[in-house]
């Protein structure tokens, strides 16, 4: 059964949001979401890197790892592809687009260790997506992640001015807000599904 790339794109934003249903990329999600502006910066960087690396990893997997029976090396190879690509983007941006580099640059190193990027690559392999489906899943996953972090950052900025029980401050509170956002996103689940 072939799932249309459009379905995958929208499903990965709303119904199978990479952060709210697969819990990937939680670490930078919790630490950066204190401020709306840097959340947006990180989100843009994630969308870009995730879209490109999902295609790159798909190509590497299909045309290098599978023909040579190196399937078991995929964890190492995916991590190296992601790290190399992030490094490359950093150098290109610094050289040719210094303005963009100053807004996005600080977020790029964070992305190498963002498990959402590696997670997307691993899901592609397990779900046996083709090239277009991988592209759609990468782009949708990035947008979905950004949507979630923006929602949390917006709420956190408001909550900063209120009193939260002492033991719950910081991460605990962010968790509960995320849980409620995730519940809200379940409302979309009747629309489409890729599972």
């Amino acid at each position, binding site marked *: 059964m072939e799932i249309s790339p459009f379905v995958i794109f929208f499903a990965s934003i709303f119904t199978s949001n990479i952060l*709210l*249903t*697969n*819990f*990937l*990329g*939680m*670490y930078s999600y*919790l630490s950066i979401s204190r401020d709306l502006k840097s959340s947006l910066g990180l989100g843009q960087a994630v969308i870009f890197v995730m879209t490109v690396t999902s295609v790159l990893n798909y190509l590497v997997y299909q045309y290098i790892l599978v023909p040579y029976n190196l399937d*078991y*090396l*995929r*964890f*190492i190879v*995916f*991590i190296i592809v992601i*790290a190399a690509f992030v490094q490359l983007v950093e150098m290109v941006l610094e050289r040719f687009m210094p303005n963009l580099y100053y807004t996005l640059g600080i977020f790029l190193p964070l992305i190498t*260790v*963002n*498990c959402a990027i*590696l*997670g997307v690559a*691993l*899901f592609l392999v*397990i779900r046996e997506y083709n090239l277009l489906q991988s592209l759609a899943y990468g782009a949708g996953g990035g947008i979905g992640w950004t949507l979630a972090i923006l929602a949390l950052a917006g709420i956190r900025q408001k909550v*900063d*001015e*209120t*009193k*939260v*029980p*002492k*033991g*719950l*401050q*910081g*991460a*605990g*509170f962010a*968790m*509960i807000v*995320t*849980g*409620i956002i*995730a*519940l809200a996103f*379940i409302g979309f689940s009747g629309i489409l599904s890729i599972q």
Partner: protein
Amino acid sequence: MKSQYREIAKQTLWTDNPVIRQILGICSALAVTNLVSNTLVMGIGVSLVTAFSSLTVSALRKIMPNRVRMMVQTLIIAFYVILVDIILRAFFPDMSRALGPYVGLIITNCIIMGRCEAFAQTNKPLISFYDGFMSGLGYTLVLATIAIVRELMGFGTILGIQILGEWWTPWTVMVMAPSAFFVLAIIIWVANSITDKKLHAAGKPVNKGVQASGN
């Protein structure tokens, strides 16, 4: 010597527990906690990978050039994760399918890198191994707690054994993603409150943290 081991155990399991105190490694912590059995396998995997990565990093600490350190550590961790994955696929294929991509995602689990950087880099191999293993155990402990709550309320079972009788109406929400956030938040809350109370009893000032002080 002995007291050092006891100190590490106390820190990793409670006072500096990687999940509830340092909020590390929660990506996988939340995803695999719908069933207790998944959680235990994941916990054993993470403990072993952390222990052996710490051992290797510590053994190589004198000859490893500082500049390539991160890259080498990542490769060492990836090597052990691949071993775990292959063993799972060979002997427990059902479990491997249930955990899906989360076995591979052990690589980006910050606990492992954190222990390599913070402890193994400056300590002897044997104690690094112990430290890594105990950190993994601290992670497993919190995960198992979440999983027991979720499986018991979601299915009425623990490890697949029926605990709650027919009268129990399973909470569908406990099977779904949001409950993982709620349960972990509550565990963090309880843990923080207990420490606060202890500090109060000892007469020490309670850590104010980032408490918002309205004018």
